[in-house]
Each structure stands twice: as C-alpha cells, then as structure tokens.
C-alpha cells in the first residue's frame, strides 16, 4: 500500500511531461498485452482454419461426387441428388462454408467437361448460389461485384449478360477486367463487342488475359477488327493491333496503313510491327517517304520491318543508314545490305577504320 501511495504521490508531484510519459507507458502496456494475446490467437486460428477448410473441402468433394453419380436419365434431378442439394443448401447459408463450397465447385468445374460440367452448373442453380452471385452484382463494394462476376463466369451463367455489362466502365479496373473476361469466356469473339463501348483504358495486362481466353477457344472465326482500329480509345487500338497480328487480318490492311499516321507514337510503332508481320510492302514504301522525320523508335521499328521486307531497289536508300548513330538502325541496315550486295558489304571493312563499326561488320559477316 505504501508503494502504491508513494507512486501516486510521485506521479502527482511530477512535471506534466513526466505524467504524460507515464500515461503513455501505461497505455502501451495496456495495448501490448492484448496484442500478444491476439497474436497467439491468430496463429492458432489460422492453423485451425487451415485444418477446417481441408475437412470441409473433403466433405463437399464427397457430396459432389455422390451427386454426379446419383443422376439418371429419367429425371432431371434424382431423389438422391435432391437429398444432397438440400444438405448443400444448408451450407450455402453460411458465408464461410459457401466460400469453400464455391471453391470446390470451381475446382471440379475446371477439371471436367460435357454433361458432367452441365450437372455442376445445375447444382449451382439448385443450391441457390446463383442468387448470392446476382446479389453481389448490385453491391456497393467493388470487390464484392468483381467476385460476383467472376463466379458467374466460372459457372457459365450467360443469362445475366446485360447486368454484367453495366459495369463496362466501372471506376475499378478489377471489376472491368472481370466483366471483360466474363464476356470473352462466355460469348467468345462476339463478347469482344464490349470494346465498342469501352471508354476506360484496357491495360496490357488485361489484353494478355483476354487473348489468353480467346486462345483457348475452339472457334477461330474472328469478326473484322476494323472498327476497333478506328477507336478513339488508344488502348482498344493496341488490342485490335494484337488481334490483327494473331489472327492474320489481311482485310484490315487499309486501316492498318492509316494508323502509320496516327497521333499516338506507340500506335504508329505497333502498326509498323503488324504490317511487317503481314508482309505489306506498301507500308514500307509509305514509310520510306518520311522516315527521316519520324521518331527514333519508329525508325528502329521501320528498319526491323525492312529486315523482313527488303528489295533490291532499297539498296540506295539503305546506304544512307549504314553509318547511322543509332546501334539498332546501323545493325539492321548492315544486315540487309549484306543480303542485298555481299561484295559491297565486304568492301566496307576497308572503307572505314572505326573499330566499333568494323566489329559490327565482322560480326555480321560471321553470323
């Protein structure tokens, strides 16, 4: 008691700053003790949760396998299947169990195809999971909407296309990306029509995801990309350029040639790449006219094109560039020059004493 009184007197008599310091000390002690308890709790909880998830996953997998084997041709849903649906319906009401069930369904959906996959989709309807996904589409939080769209995509729910399309220009890129993947995965090339209304940027990452989804499709009938090549959204133009290259869009050559004069430099560079890939000689002739006034990156892209589309008549033009300051242009020009006129190329060794230049010539001579 004496110590307590002594401490109390000490604090009362101490300067204000000391009082504040001790108050803060007590505050930290009061915070640190629960933090330690919390830390112990979350570590235990995470371990328990891991075990619990494994148990539920096993349980639901067994339900689903029984469900798939319990089907018969006479009834849409057999009695045994109805029992399983009722059991799963109970689980669906709890968010924790619902999450695990969906992950098991998705895993199974990805591993199977044909009628079995249709059965899984039926199960998704009958357990009421669809209602939860639709409810998510109208949620305020972006990540809930994105999860909803992803789920609808995973279970191939085509009927809600209009509701999903409402998010085409959502401020969050994750929602937009899920919407785009939903459209392409469920409606294939037709789904790409969201590009007509897209006002927000389509990132390179998004484009890779979409092209990956398209690549997996069996149908390779692509619509014309011309309207997207004319888009006022530059990122749509970039995507259309990739489509034109991957799907050999020779019908789009006129539009591609127009892009050589696009206001965006990167569009011009990418167009050069696509035209080179499609072997459009006309592009080379257009670019030759004003290449001197174009940016360095355009020049480099042009010379890469020349490596592919060179002709004997280009020799005179090329000679001007074999001593270009830029390494890539110089190497490209020399490479083509060697192919056009080997004799003159070899004589270059004796015309120029610059060791750097000679090193390039020697390298190209041997490779």
């Amino acid at each position: 008691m004496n110590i307590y009184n002594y401490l109390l007197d000490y604090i009362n008599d101490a300067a204000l700053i000391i009082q504040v310091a001790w108050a803060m000390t007590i505050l930290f002690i009061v915070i640190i003790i629960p933090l330690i308890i919390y830390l112990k709790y979350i570590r235990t909880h995470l371990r328990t949760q891991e075990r619990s998830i494994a148990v539920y996953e096993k349980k639901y997998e067994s339900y689903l396998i029984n469900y798939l084997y319990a089907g018969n041709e006479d009834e849409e849903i057999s009695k045994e299947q109805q029992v399983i649906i009722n059991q799963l319906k109970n689980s669906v009401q709890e968010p924790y169990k619902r999450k695990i069930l969906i992950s098991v369904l998705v895993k199974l959906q990805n591993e199977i195809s044909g009628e079995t996959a249709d059965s899984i989709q039926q199960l998704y309807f009958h357990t009421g999971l669809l209602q939860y996904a639709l409810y998510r589409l109208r949620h305020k939080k972006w990540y809930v909407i994105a999860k909803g769209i992803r789920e609808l995509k995973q279970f191939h729910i085509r009927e809600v296309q209009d509701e999903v399309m409402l998010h085409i220009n959502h401020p969050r890129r994750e929602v937009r990306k899920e919407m785009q993947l939903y459209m392409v995965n469920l409606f294939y090339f037709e789904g790409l029509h969201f590009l007509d209304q897209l006002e927000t940027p389509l990132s390179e990452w998004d484009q890779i995801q979409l092209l990956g989804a398209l690549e997996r499709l069996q149908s390779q009938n692509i619509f014309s990309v011309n309207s997207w090549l004319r888009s006022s959204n530059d990122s749509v133009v970039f995507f259309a350029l990739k489509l034109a290259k991957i799907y050999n869009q020779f019908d789009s050559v006129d539009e591609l040639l127009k892009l050589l004069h696009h206001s965006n430099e990167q569009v011009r560079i990418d167009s050069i790449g696509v035209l080179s890939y499609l072997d459009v000689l006309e592009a080379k002739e257009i670019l030759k006219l004003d290449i001197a006034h174009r940016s360095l990156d355009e020049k480099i892209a042009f010379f890469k094109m020349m490596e592919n589309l060179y002709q004997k008549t280009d020799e005179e033009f090329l000679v001007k560039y074999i001593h270009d300051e830029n390494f890539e242009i110089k190497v490209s020009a020399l490479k083509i020059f060697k192919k056009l006129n080997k004799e003159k190329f070899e004589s270059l060794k004796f015309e120029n004493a610059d060791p750097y230049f000679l090193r390039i010539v020697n390298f190209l001579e041997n490779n």
Partner: protein
Amino acid sequence: MISTVAQIIIDLFHYLFFIYSISAIISYLILAYISAIETIEYKRKNSFVNYKEIMSSNISPSISIIAPAYNESLNIVENVRSLLSSHYVNYDVIIINDGSKDDSLQKLIEVYDLIEVDYLINEQIPTMPLRAGIFKSTNPAFEKLIIVDKENGGKADALNMGLNISKSKYVACIDVDCLLLEDSLQKMIKPFLEITDRTVIAAGGVIRISNSCIVKEGKLHDVNFPKKLIEQGQILEYIRAFLLGRMAWSRLNGLLVISGAFGLFDKKIAIQVGGYDKNTVGEDMELVVRMRGYMEEIKQKYKVAYIPDPLCWTEAPDNYKIFTSQRNRWTRGTIETLRKHRKIGFNPKYNILGMLSYPYWLFFERMAPVIEFVGILYFGILIITDKIKWDYAFAFIILAYLFTVFFSLIAIITEELTYHQYKKKGTGIHLITIAFLEPFVNHPFILYAAMRGNFDYYFNKKKKWGEMTRKGMAKA
C-alpha cells in the same frame, strides 16, 4: 549571463531532441497506417489476378535476369539452376562473372555445357572489358542462359554489362545467391503492364531471409525460423521495413530504394540515365533516385511500384562482424546517394521526391543514428556530471522501448494476417520474444555500424564493399 545563454542552448537542445523523437514516432505511425490500407488493398486486388495467362502468353514482355557473381564458386551452379526455374515464359538469365578468381566459370562451363559464342554488344554504358568472353549452352534445356566473363569492375559495372548485353525490354537485377520463387517474374512485371496512367520505371519486391530454410533443387522447400538471435532480429527488422515502411511509400509513390537483391527496371530508362553508378556502394538506391529525378525533370508521370509478396529469399549475415560490415556499407550508400542528389532535397520541382521522400530519408534514415549517438553521448555526460534527472530519463527510456516493442508486434501481426510465412508451431513465441529482445541484440550493432559508416565515409574513402561469407542454404 554566460550561464543563462548556456542554459538556453541546453534547453533548445532538449526541445530539438524531443521534437525529433516525437516526429519520428508520428511518422512511423502514419507510415504503418498507410501500409495497412495499402496491404489490404493489394491483397484484395491480388485475389482477382490470374498469373497463369501471363506465364504462357507469347506476347508477355521479355525480361532479362541479370545476376553479377564474384567468387561464388561454392553455390554458383545451384544458384543458376534456381534462376532458371522461373515459370515465366519470355525471359533469359545473364550471369556476369565479374573477374572471379575462383573456378566459378569452369564449374558453369562443365555443368551447363557452355561454349563461347560471338555476341554483338551494344555498348551503351561503358564497362570493364570482357575476359574469357560470352558463353551459351549447347544443351537446349539451358537455352535461356548467358554467361558473361569479364574483368573485375565491381557490382555496378557487372550490372551495367548486363544492361548492355540484354535484348529484353525489362531487366531484373538480382544478387546471384538470391532464391527467386517460380512466380516472381510474373508478379513483378504486373504493375508495368497494368498501370496505364503513368510509366512504371521500376518495381521492387520484399526480401525474405532464408537462413535455416530448406532448399531442394533450387526451390524453397521449407520455411524455418532460425535459432540465432542475430538472424531472428534481422527477420523482424525486414518484416518491419518491408511490410510497414516500403508498402506505405509505395502508396505515396515516394519509394526511394529498391533492394539490390531483387528489382525490376525499365531497361530503356535505366540506360537513358546512364545505368548503375560505379562510384557508390549504394548503387541500388542511387539508380532509383536518379531514374526518379530524371522522370521529374522531363515532367513525365511515373511510378516506382512495390510488390509485398515474399518473392525473393536471401541469406542474411549470421555473425556480428559481417552484419556490421553490411550495415556500414548501407550507411555509406545512403550518405553518398543523398549527397549526390542533394539538389533534389526540398526542391518543389521534384514534387513528392523532393518534398517528402528525400527529407524523410535525410532526417529519419540518414540522421537517425547520428542523433541517437549524440543523445547517448549527452546522456553519458549528464551521468558523469551528475546532472541527470533520473525520473525523466527512466520514463522516456521505458516509453521508447515500449513503442519499439509495440511497433514490432504490429509488424508481426501484419505478417501473420497477410503472408503467414512462419507457420510452424512454437515460432509465435520466438517472434514475440525477439520483439522484446531486438533492441538489445541487434540495434546496438546497427548503431555502431552506422556510426562507423559515417566515419568511413568522411575519413576512410578507400573503404568499399565489405565481405559476405556464404554458407549456402540448407539442402533437403
């Protein structure tokens, strides 16, 4: 009169110390709060990412992994194997043997069936010349591997050679002994491809400590918590720095440093600014500051991104000699970079870089050990002259200690709620214990190393890199 003036000076001194300490504490709390927001946001966003598409896509951009090696014979074969095991589709690995005096090159030639090849180098950055030349494998399984053997010029020079050699759009500069997880490249490249409203010039990742971890065939097999306090202390320090510090700076777009152990750069911009500076021991931080400064000068919107996932594991010093030598070098690197780029500091032309990042690094990274050291000296003088007010001293020492413990516990909880890397039972109590012990087991050495770094910077200019003795990671 004189004693009054002296008293005013002493009082002013006290107030400055007090204000500095309070500002440091407030800044840590603000950064921790911002980190929490950014971490939650990142985890949410990442739950929608499918990395498989980028792995197999032919249009994914090319990346060169550049790894300088100097006398790494002990682990070089395993390390290269680890670098070659990435799941990314479009990458190559460039190992720069920087004039090693051991048999590193011979080992690589034998194991990877290397032959010398003719290679046209675009020498955009001057470097030391080639020694034995450039090698590629005759075995198609190692077609992504390029070995460059050059005269010794230091880490920065070796990295610059890698920049010249690389034909990729992006370069991942890493320490050769680092263990990269298989999905590291796709995670690091994501911000470059995803952000559309500005140019991403560089991305840094979290570095984790691999001491005591089990490695099998170049892959991380089992994560263990080391037994030595020095190693445990560094784990806690890294968690604090990466999860509570850099995460916040990333959100503020004020990240000033990307660890030299693993960083991804836009090659064109890295070359445009002249590559790595050979005259500093903090070349990693210096390059980022220079690239940022350049982007500010050309008035182009940019970002230095940060990936909090544990992508890169590295061996940390396990004895105090090497530990202090490493921290000494870090201190000198920071001083050199801040001095070299002093025109950026407090310059509104450089926006956040000049008005926030630079001042923060100057006051709370560069000056912190100096101020702490002066404080300890002053404390000693007060004890000797018997002028110490023990009630003040005692209250504030306890308060500072509890704040440190509190901050460490917050970092550990963040780790548990996000990445939960140390899953094994019993590790929790070690983590809590080290939160209480770290101020005594590692901090005094960090302070000593920082002060030695300051001394060496001003009075021992010849000092360059310290030595790191590799033991190699435990193999299963």
